[in-house]
């Protein structure tokens, strides 16, 4: 009798838990769905080619987002291209090569702490280190050192000033700890037997990493990277500190170009008094979601290309 009740209790608990989980999932999906639908509802009317092709304007009907759109693409591309190799490299060193010493423990603790630092702090760091370069090349608007023609693709100057490069590198600082930690987790999830097998066959650590662990960890690394890039594309505070502009008529043409980003434009439109700008903010959010999906699409593509089945 007691055994029967306990069985039914256990089955009830099982069903209740299932329903709780379903409820949690559905609430999350529902919140997202409401958000997307209401944004689409408000923003669909003003979302057209002209909106994507136009620059900023005081008249909502003439205003568009080409400049912040390309600004976001440049900044996030730079951020991703720098943060992924650096982050994955650091994680591989810490997990696969480094011995557990006091030094690696300090590095590890620091990385964990950095992941929790508010992004505006990285903005101040980016301003000092990248935009102004500690004043080592003179201060003010004039560049200390210039290479090439400002109109060409291969123009470089020091300090970087409030440029896409300074912005991208600042965002790189923001997401680097996330990339490192998620890559470390992905590497830790690889069964040790895989490494032991490779090493037993005489492979060097490098061969083991490149041939066995890294390919097996690609799905985990890419998932972490997608989360990190999603954060980068939504950041505005650190870029504001670095000196991102809002009104600008030219899209970036080299690493030293001034830039604006989508979140900044969205916030500015959302807080304007005229209702016409609020619709534009919604349209820009839709565009931002599409850009985010595009970046994630690239990550998924890379995952498919690099992934090797774990046998």
């Amino acid at each position, binding site marked *: 009798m007691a055994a029967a009740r306990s069985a039914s209790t256990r089955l009830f608990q099982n069903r209740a838990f299932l329903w709780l989980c379903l409820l949690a999932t559905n609430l999350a999906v529902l919140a997202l769905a409401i958000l997307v639908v209401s944004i689409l509802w408000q923003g669909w009317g003003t979302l057209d080619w002209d909106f994507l092709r136009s620059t900023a304007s*005081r008249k909502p009907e003439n205003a568009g987002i080409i400049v912040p759109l390309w600004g976001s693409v440049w900044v996030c591309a730079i951020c991703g291209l720098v943060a992924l190799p650096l982050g994955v490299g650091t994680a591989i060193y810490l997990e696969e090569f480094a011995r557990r010493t006091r030094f690696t423990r300090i590095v590890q603790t620091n990385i964990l702490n950095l992941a929790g630092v508010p992004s505006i702090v990285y903005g101040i760091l980016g301003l000092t280190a990248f935009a102004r370069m500690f004043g080592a090349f003179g201060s003010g*608007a004039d560049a200390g050192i210039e290479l090439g023609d400002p109109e060409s693709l291969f123009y470089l100057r020091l300090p970087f000033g*409030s440029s896409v490069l300074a912005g991208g590198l600042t965002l790189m600082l923001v997401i680097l700890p996330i990339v490192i930690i998620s890559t470390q987790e992905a590497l830790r999830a690889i069964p040790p037997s895989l490494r032991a097998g490779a090493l037993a066959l005489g492979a060097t650590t490098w061969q083991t990493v490149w041939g066995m662990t890294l390919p097996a960890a690609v799905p985990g690394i890419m998932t972490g990277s997608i989360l990190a890039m999603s954060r980068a594309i939504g950041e505005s505070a650190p870029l*504001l*500190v670095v*000196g*991102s502009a*809002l009104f600008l*008529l030219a899209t970036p043409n080299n690493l030293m170009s001034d830039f604006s980003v989508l979140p900044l434009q969205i916030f500015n439109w959302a807080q304007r008094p005229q209702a016409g700008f609020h619709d534009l903010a919604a349209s820009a959010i839709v565009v931002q979601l599409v850009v985010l999906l595009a970046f994630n699409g690239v990550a998924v593509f890379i995952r498919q290309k690099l992934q090797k089945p774990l046998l």
Partner: protein
Amino acid sequence: MLKQLSSIGLLATAGLLFAAAPQDANLKNLKGVVKIDGSSTVYPITEAVAEEFNAVAPKVRVTVGVSGTGGGFKRFVAGEIDIADASRPIKKSEFDMAAKAKIDFIELPIAFDGLTIVVNPKNTWCTSLTVAQVKKIFGASGSAKTWKDVDASWPATPIKVYSPGTDSGTFDYFKEVVVGKDGAIRSDMSVSEDDNVLVRGVTGDEGAIGFFGCAYYFENKDKVRAVGVDGGKGAVMPTIESIENGSYAPFSRPLFIYVSKASADKPEVKAFIEFYLKNVARLAAEVGYVKLPDAVYSKVGANWTANRIGSQFIDPKGDHITGSLAEFYK
């Protein structure tokens, strides 16, 4: 007649300005970069001017940022930008930093933003407030809990206060007018950086009171009701006229641009400022702000042509002085 005279004065000033500036044909070929940063309140005006300027001088690259008034001044004294947008006069500390960095600047008021105190439309009792009553509602010491605390004939409906973010220039200005430099505004308020949120808050709460720039009030006249302000000479409602002529005292807030003297010598910056002063009255009104009286504009134009360095709000000894714009720009 007086108005005509002053607008002739304005035209004459503009003529003077343009005699010194490159001609329109030259503007087409003028090249260079004009970097602006600062207040997000001033941003819509500067954006409008920059947009129009691009039509006459397409090769000049104008960039406008929104780091906030304080953030803009920081970049201004570092020599990174040519022009700082500001929703309040320069502070003493910023003035000293500029002096230390040897950045001379020209202060140019460009428009008014009338801070508007609003209540819920269902609030039938409160049609105007004296400055003392405003202090009773918003001040930190002895702040009113219900409307009855403000005026004994009003109902005991609880007061709910909505305020712009405490980092904003709007808040700074309101605070200085209501409780003075060293006073404090009450802390039990609903605060938002986005003034549209304040509009929604006041719309949904019968006992609510809030304040924000007049542009938000003009766009939401159907949702919130403005309260007249009695600065000692009877209640005055915030209208374009009362804000412009200064009778909506003390809440007519001036907005400024600060131009670095070194930048003002560059032809592209010079051309931009001249274009700015010539068109700002019309463009400011278009984006929801209130133009300055013509007499003030002509004084501002004269200051610009004469390269008048420094701030009218800091006296020669370096102390901050308060007063209305019309007094300083007579």
